[in-house]
């Protein structure tokens, strides 16, 4: 097992389209790294460059401190699981599993014992004599996983392996994969994993660390908690979290503590102290729907909004409200929700001070991050 390093990786496709713009990424030995981002942000391209299925225009890929740029995929010590399984359609499951080992000229008894072990782990013993077309989606994906596992590679690469499965199966496969990763770690042969997905639930639940990408750039690499609590920029803030973080244009001024003005309404907030220095002027205000308190109209330090929509989700209610030209979504637990509220009513919206993020209007950088901020948030979380 080995660590994986990307050094200033660039990719320009044959048609001149530049898909990847100089990516640097370190994945530690045994780490589960998730690449996540909207469609077309070059997640697959990056993964395929690591695999050797796509040439690297510029930069270096190192696996276990060896530059692998010019190695063929088979020599890189990787295994890959594809979105549509990519099982060899004319081979039985057994041969699908052992194909790689056969090419490496492993002894027959070694191949047999590896096949037994892997099919045991993935519970596919009964399927060994079947053809891929005789498998369900979940079974096929387990076989594909087995085909990767049997090679005991240095690095596992996954390209949206679960997106062809239904929601329930996806959830169980998610657990299966993370369990497998933990198990390998416990057995003393930790597996380095790069896992591509566009599903943030997968990203947040599976990744040791998450790499958020956009248009061939890395926006932030961090563990799930940091990513959620301390997004480096407005893109990450908006991408991670459900429903999306509210991002609205606002003005910051000084009035003892920081005063935030949205479309003529202004409130004082205390949670920004020590986080934004002397910043004043236009910013993008970011506040998660979960951190927007719904209060009575006219309450202190709350914006007054008009309800534009109410979505009853069962355990919670998504309340959409407009404050001037800005719109907010607030999530209220069902049992705390005032059922007399209706569309068109006025409500007060009070952002939780320590949970407010301010982003630079131009660059989108989070300008409200500071070491203390983290502490405040932790305190808040404990409460």
């Amino acid at each position, binding site marked *: 097992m080995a660590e994986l390093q990307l050094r200033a990786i660039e990719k320009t496709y044959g048609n001149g389209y530049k898909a990847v713009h100089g990516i640097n990424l370190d994945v530690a030995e045994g780490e589960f790294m998730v690449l996540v981002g909207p469609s077309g942000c070059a997640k697959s391209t990056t993964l395929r460059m690591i695999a*050797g299925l796509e040439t690297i225009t510029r930069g270096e890929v190192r696996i276990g401190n060896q530059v692998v740029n010019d190695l*063929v995929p088979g020599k890189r010590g990787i295994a890959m699981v594809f979105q549509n399984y990519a099982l060899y359609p004319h081979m039985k499951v057994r041969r699908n599993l052992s194909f790689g080992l056969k090419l490496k000229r492993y002894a027959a008894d070694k191949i047999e014992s590896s096949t037994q072990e892997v099919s045991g782990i993935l519970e596919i013993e009964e399927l060994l004599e079947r053809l891929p077309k005789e498998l369900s989606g979940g079974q096929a994906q387990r076989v594909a996983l087995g085909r990767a596992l049997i090679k005991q590679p240095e690095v596992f690469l996954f390209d949206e392996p679960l997106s062809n499965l239904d929601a329930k199966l996806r959830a169980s496969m998610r657990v299966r994969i993370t369990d497998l990763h933990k198990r390998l770690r416990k057995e003393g042969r930790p597996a380095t994993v790069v896992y591509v997905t566009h599903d943030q639930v997968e990203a947040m639940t599976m990744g040791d660390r998450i790499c958020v990408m956009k248009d061939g750039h890395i926006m932030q690499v961090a563990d799930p908690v940091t990513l959620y609590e301390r997004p480096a920029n407005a893109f990450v803030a908006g991408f991670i979290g459900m429903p999306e973080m509210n991002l609205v244009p606002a003005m910051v001024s000084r009035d003892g503590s920081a005063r935030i003005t949205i479309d003529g309404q202004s409130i004082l907030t205390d949670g920004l102290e020590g986080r934004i220095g002397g910043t004043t002027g236009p910013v993008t205000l970011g506040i998660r729907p979960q951190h927007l308190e719904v209060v009575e109209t006219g309450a202190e330090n709350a914006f007054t909004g008009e309800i534009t929509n109410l979505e009853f989700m069962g355990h919670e209610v998504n309340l959409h409200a407009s404050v001037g030209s800005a719109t907010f979504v607030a999530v209220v637990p069902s049992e705390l929700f005032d059922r007399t509220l209706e569309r068109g009513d006025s409500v007060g919206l009070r952002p939780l001070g320590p949970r407010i993020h301010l982003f630079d209007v131009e660059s989108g950088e989070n300008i409200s991050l500071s070491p203390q901020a983290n502490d405040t948030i932790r305190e808040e979380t404990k409460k």
Partner: protein
Amino acid sequence: MDNLSHIGTGLEPKTELELKLRRKTRISAAFRYTVLAVVGLMMIYPLIWMIGASFKTNAEMFSSPSFWPKEATVQGYIDGWKTSTPYTFGHFFLNSLWIIIPKVIGTAVSCTLVAYGFARFEFPGKKILFATVIATLLLPNVVTRIPQYLLFRDIGWLDSFLPLWVPSALAGDAFFVFMVIQFLRAIPRDMEEAARVDGATTLQTLIYIVVPMLMPALISVCLFQFMWTMNDFLGPLIYISSVEKYPVSLALKLSIDTTEAFAWNQILAMSVLTLAPSLTVFFLAQKYFIEGISTGGVKG
């Protein structure tokens, strides 16, 4: 009771309409099948007539229009098989096989290699080369006959099977190359990429992964090549001059040439024999044949 009668009246007009519709579809189906049967019979009648006539005596051949022989005889087959040459018809069959088998194998191998290259790799000049392949596809065969003849004459290949084998073994049949390319394009590349990740070289990927997936297309290629070569008359006519090397297509013509009074029953009998291999192979492999032509991808 009230309810029931209500339902009854409600239903009756509907069933009547249904009956009418059903009658209509039945009539139109009958009509369609009649037309199809008549046209089909027109197509197949010469064949039926030929088979029937091959069992007639030479005298009866043109005296009765019916295809059913009055007194069936296999004399045509016996005499025809002997031929007017020192060789039996079996000898010519072997010649045909000796032309066909290397040609079919050469075609399958070379087309696979060339199509794989075009469908899966980027290389300089690919567009121009592919355009050339398509251009040869559109070019009428006769245009190249004379230059080809001169070429093979200069190499000294006349009166041998080489001019028939070599062009096909070098993927000279652009149609087959094109057919395999189209088929390959419909197959996703993931399996090949998985094989590469598994450590297979390009050639191993081709042999272990691509060829098995290409099977339906390759079988059709082989079948087409088999039938076309079996029926090819012009190629052997141009290049092969000694009777000893004649394939059946030329041998048939031979019996017309050398007999003063045409023994039509012999000719027809041998024609039936000549058709037999193609027909047998076609019916045996019909399933793959259709699969291959309808350029479907790989299931599942």
